[in-house]
């Protein structure tokens, strides 16, 4: 037993609500996975579109522009609250977390309603043709993640409201925003492609 040099870490904090936490990195990995899925779907969309003379396939309406475009407003508005929520989580400011999480959730829900309305107005479904299949894949996958994260935010809000939270939950609030930024960011290209794409590269009937 030789006395060895020791490195004492007792002074270090027992937790950390920041991007230094492994959890944050794990969350980023999951975001990358989702992002890769959406990019591959986009690649597939262009692949099939290039093989078609007529797009959208005859019988499909052009997807509406109004509601999805309006929808961008609450979607983008939901980002700042997410950011402030994470700041509040770092500072362990309960009021701030409650306020911003609630706002985030509110805008999120408004957008979700618009999404559902618009989705129902499509005149083609997944069985209609390849465009139907792909558009429904985009909407389905994104909505699935979106609802999932809404639920996660809701649970966090409830925990903070009931005061049943500690570092882990604050860290949860922090990394939750990572997912939220991602979901908003990834929607923009999808929105452009599936709603504007058919118009921008319209083909003569």
């Amino acid at each position, binding site marked *: *037993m*030789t*006395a*060895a*040099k*020791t*490195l*004492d*870490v*007792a*002074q*270090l*904090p*027992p*937790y*950390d609500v920041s991007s*230094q*936490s*492994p*959890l944050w*990195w*794990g969350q980023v*990995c*999951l975001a*990358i*996975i*989702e992002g*890769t*899925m959406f990019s*591959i*779907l986009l690649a*597939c969309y262009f*692949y*099939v579109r290039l*093989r*078609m003379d007529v797009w959208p*396939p005859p019988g499909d309406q052009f997807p509406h522009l109004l509601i999805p475009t309006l929808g961008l407003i609450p979607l983008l508005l939901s980002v700042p609250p997410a950011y402030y929520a994470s700041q509040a989580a770092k500072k362990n400011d309960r009021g701030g977390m409650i306020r911003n999480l609630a706002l985030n959730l509110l805008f999120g829900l408004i957008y979700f309603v618009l999404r559902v309305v618009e989705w129902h107005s499509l005149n083609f479904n*997944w*069985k*209609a*043709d*390849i*465009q*139907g*299949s*792909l558009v*429904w*894949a985009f909407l389905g996958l994104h909505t*699935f993640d979106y609802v*999932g994260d809404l*639920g996660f935010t809701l*649970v966090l809000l409830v*925990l903070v409201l009931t005061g*049943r*939270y*500690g*570092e*882990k*939950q604050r860290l*949860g609030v922090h990394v939750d925003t990572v997912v939220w930024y991602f979901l908003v960011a990834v929607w923009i290209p999808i929105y452009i492609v599936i709603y504007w794409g058919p118009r921008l590269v319209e083909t003569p009937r």
Partner: protein
Amino acid sequence: MNRSDHVTPTTGGEARELRLLEQAWRHPRGIFGWLSYTTHQAIGLRYIVTAFIFLLVGGIEALLMRIQLAVPNNTFLSPDRYNEIFTTHGTTMMFLFAVPVMEGMGIYLVPLMLGTRNVAFPRLNAFGYWMYLCGCIFLYWGVFTNAAPDAGWFAYPPLAGPQFDPGKRVDFWAQMITFTEVSAMCVAAELIATIFKMRAPGMTLNRIPLFCWSMLVQSFMVIFAMPSIMIASSFLLSDRTLGTHYVNPAEGGDPLLYQHVFWFFGHPEVYIIFIPALGFVSHIISAHSRRAVFGYPAMVLSVVATGFIGFGLWVHHMFATGLPQIGEAYFTASSMMIAIASGAQIFCWIATLWTGRLRMTTALHFVFGFIAIFVFGGLSGLVLASVPLDLQVHDTYFVVAHFHYVLIGGALFPLFGAFYHWFPKMTGRLLNEALGKLNFWVLFIGFNLTFFPMHILGLKGMTRRIYTYPPEMGWGAANHLATIGAAIIALGGLLFIANVLLSRRRGQIAGDDPWDADTLEWAASSPPANYNFEYLPVASSRSPLWDPPEERAIVTGLRNDRREALVTTLMDAEPHHRYVLPGPTIWPLITAIAVTVGFAGSVFNGWYIFWGAGLTGIGLIGWFWPRRPLELKP
């Protein structure tokens, strides 16, 4: 040989601290306790054992195929059964054995090599294993209910589509993919976080053990490749069950779209399997040739390069579909570039052996076998990279020979070597060396006897996946030889099992560091305690255990009354904060079962997706529900 590396400060109350640590990391008792383990050693071993069971199953399927092909016009298997068996064999080996076993080794070894106490997300780790197990059971549920997939392990539509493969066979295949991909992604995410943030203090980027580099690259490949196969299998599944048109030409879909998406995963998959094996080889060589691997930077660079290039050559699986010539030239070039990276590594290893003092253990035997077989397989890979030659040998037994050379030679031999190398760490006992060398030679001879003749068969026109062939083709002799070889391989497998079973009971007791190796896992006791290290080590160099004791240091000041580990900075591994790891819990299992309900049910009825999602939500809430104490005492 056995050198105690527990350099511990002679402070008082040490015994009490140790008891606290034992207490904090003790496994819960009983069957429910067993189901709620979250330590990386336990989960890693579960991966490894399960994967080995499926290696045996896949091997039995391979033997059945070899019996069928042993003689011309054989009627041992019906064509239908044969198709099911070769599909299940490929699927089992790729998705239920090769990837999971490498992940298992990573889960077991990475925290030990990094000098930490567990992976970053122990519960996600458990969840990943349960998902993998459910996937295995799901596929073999299909197999046993006469619904074994029969469209080949890459299930090309339209043959695998709704019109030409009725029933649930391919649905079982496609959904099994989802299970194993979820599991693989969990492992990838947690290993990346672990390697980035939980390295021992002082383990800067250029001190990370080569195996951890391999697992890092492999994890990133998983993250970028697996989504692709998930998309592909979902396309197939929804076309078959929901009536979508992703691969239906009549409605604007395209069968080739599936091939592109599949192979964008399918080629990296090969590297996902074999990059960890490169890590094994480096460690075995450095330990048994008594010197650090030559050219560490070159090794790291070529592994990373392999990871990148691996995504750039999927089209060489599709040369026969007729692509523009310029594209073909590009993919030929990129396919050959891989050879540069692999070549550099081989040369570095040979250089290491060259200047080392070799200790001809079984592990090193397997490494030599690896070099011989893998180099051969790599060279035949160059034949496949060349478009004109590929047009001839594509989808023939030449290809079968090639990928068994790279996968068995490139991954399985290093894996066996790794077992002989790390078995003492896992069990505390050495595997029998004499039996081990016999095991190696039987496997090596059997392997070449089985797969070498297949090169010739391929050139003589024997196509892949045919359930029989007429005698006048002159393929009989080589096929007969291959079948004999397969029997010899099986014998080798039995020898290995025998060796494991014998040595677990009465193998020679191994100390902490039987090989006098250099990386941190050998500083832990064998088998390691649940907390790996009583005091986390500090990485004083690339080969910490070869440093003189006075240069080594340990970490003190972690609380021992809870599962605490140290988070360090990304680049320089400076201590940043302490990190409390979650303890044992049953919720990952519950969540995995909930997800399984959704996945398995949706094969028969789409609505199950929503039931499964609901149940999963409940599971996740239970998983993340805050437990007292909410505030951590510093």
